């Protein structure tokens, strides 16, 4: 009720509940990059020094040393990240198409979810839901804006002088083939570089997508929801993913309505 009241005060009326769904097969590319599935060309073969692609190498930490098959590698998993971001973006595009057929000026309160509803192995269901809104007595609608923000927060965003532009989903993924240190081998204790590097690289990739979207569509990204995931992959390896979903905002007015929040102590149990 309070949310719809805030939207009414902005002159926005709900036009309908809109939805976009896509089922994707999400497969990692890093296995091939690491040399799996190739005959004799993998890094396990004698005399080779590991993947030839751009990969960070983490040699074995033991005193005797071992061959390259014992080493650790961090490889960017572009196909995995691309299929995830394709899934999110397609769901949002379909949601926006539904909103356009309703003649809406925008979609507010968008929620993005991922599940394994149908399809079984490696089949992911991406779903975007939101409320299409129309500006009452407004100009003819163009491309509807999309945002996860709604209600009083949207009202405050407008009061701050920012217009919602578009929802942005940013994904980064790294395939991690761990070495002995990364596996937590207690005979070589100490600092572990490989895990922070993988997390940092995945997050950096996602963050640069956010920056790119902000540069193209507006002035900044707010309300970003981050999730870091670690999905098991070949053997002891895993895929480290960073997913960031936010709203690109664009400044339309340097004038802003000030807020004067007052501290209160609620008298409730």
């Amino acid at each position, binding site marked *: 009720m309070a949310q719809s009241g805030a939207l009414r005060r902005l002159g926005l009326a709900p036009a309908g509940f809109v939805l976009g769904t896509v089922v994707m097969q999400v497969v990692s590319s890093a296995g091939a990059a690491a040399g799996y599935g190739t005959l004799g060309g993998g890094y396990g073969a004698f005399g080779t020094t590991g993947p030839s692609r751009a990969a960070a190498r983490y040699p074995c930490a033991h005193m005797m040393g071992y061959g390259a098959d014992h080493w650790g590698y961090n490889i960017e998993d572009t196909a995995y990240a691309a299929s995830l971001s394709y899934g999110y973006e397609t769901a949002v595009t379909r949601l926006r198409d539904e909103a356009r057929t309703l003649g809406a000026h925008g979609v507010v309160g968008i929620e993005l979810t991922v599940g394994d509803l149908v399809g079984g192995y490696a089949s992911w269901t991406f779903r975007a839901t939101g409320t299409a809104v129309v500006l009452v007595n407004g100009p003819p609608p163009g491309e509807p804006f999309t945002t996860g923000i709604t209600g009083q927060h949207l009202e405050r965003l407008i009061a701050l002088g920012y217009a919602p532009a578009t929802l942005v989903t940013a994904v980064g993924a790294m395939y991690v083939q761990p070495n002995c240190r990364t596996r937590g081998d207690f005979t070589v204790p100490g600092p572990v570089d490989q895990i922070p590097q993988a997390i940092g690289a995945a997050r950096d990739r996602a963050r640069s997508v956010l920056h790119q979207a902000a*540069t193209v569509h507006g002035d900044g990204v707010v309300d*970003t929801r981050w999730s870091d995931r670690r999905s098991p992959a070949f053997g002891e390896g895993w895929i480290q993913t960073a997913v960031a979903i936010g709203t690109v905002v664009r400044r339309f007015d340097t004038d802003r309505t000030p*807020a*004067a*929040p007052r501290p209160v102590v609620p008298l409730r149990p």
Partner: protein
Amino acid sequence: MTGPTPSTPGGDTPRGGTPTPSTPSTPGSSTPGGDTPSTPGSSTPGSSTPDDAPGGNGTVPTGDPAPGAGSSPDATSSGSGLSPTVSSDPTLGAPEPPLDPHAMAQRMRAALAVRHRPPAHSAQVFASDLTVGDLVLLDEVGYQPVDLVSGAGSASWNPQMASSQQGCDAWAWALTAAISSARSAVDRELRTRAADGVVAMQLHLERHPGNLLTCTMLGTAIRAQDPDASPGRATHTEVPRRGARHGHSSRAAHHGTAGPFNTTLSARDFHLLVRAGYHPAGITVGAAVVGFASRSVAQGMGLSRDNMELSDQTGALYAAREQAMSRMDAEAKAVDADGVVAVTFSERPSHSMLVHAVEILVVGTALRRGDDGHQSLHPALQLSLDDPDPDVFLRG
């Protein structure tokens, strides 16, 4: 605990609890998420709040201070019994006037119109995981978001060495090293962005099999706004802005030391801290591992039938807590802090055939008091007429 445990007002509040719960109590926008104690309108029933206005076309006076909230409430309103005088405390000020729906609808039009202009392709974009409410609160104390910053650190240890003091120290070192290397990675990112610090940092500790700890941090870097270079300041209404003043004093508070600050405190807590005259100095960590002798075989098998204290293990818990707290104290003193708040304890026993140890990890946010000292916020008492949470009834 160790001698002078630093404490500040609110220091005994567990993490997540707000010392003085505040709302971004803008009558037009009480935060819907449920994480805020809900503000039904404002505390003056005389002021019509647009929350209740259906359709949004009711005219709401914006500039007028709400009746009953002035410094000298007139006799009729206080005598009627219908509008309780909120406060005659001049420091409290008038409640915020509600947002004018007509003006807001016009702004919404302008916001839609900007999409038809070609994008500005601004060079300096920001990224933030803060909500709009958080941005409003930061703006009010004079800070703006800069970028998302992150850091991670990992370290492993050999648990079998826990029988020796040296092994215990190496273990505790690994716990601290994972967190402090994440912290220094965040610090590097803050410095390259010329940020003043990071708020609402998500700090996750993940344990992997094989005695490995990974610490990840992620948060929004913020920078104090230049008070001279903000053209749109306080133009709509005459609400006095605290922003510039707080920005100045807090800037002075943390420029006394070397670098940018980081804290796990939420943007709301940060807002309250800055208004109360404090400033975070940084995250402080203390870790300790204390080993103890294994019980005798008879005890372990349950053949010993005496009810008695296992004093070795009690002692190990005490010693580990003392060590961890004093290490955190030492870190806080090193950054010249006045206290540590939002401290989280994680105690973990480690039991196996060979390893008998207790491991304690303490993480908190060090605070520094500004030059002006503590400023009372004069929080308004608010009696909510909502039904309390269902668990209140269940508890009787």
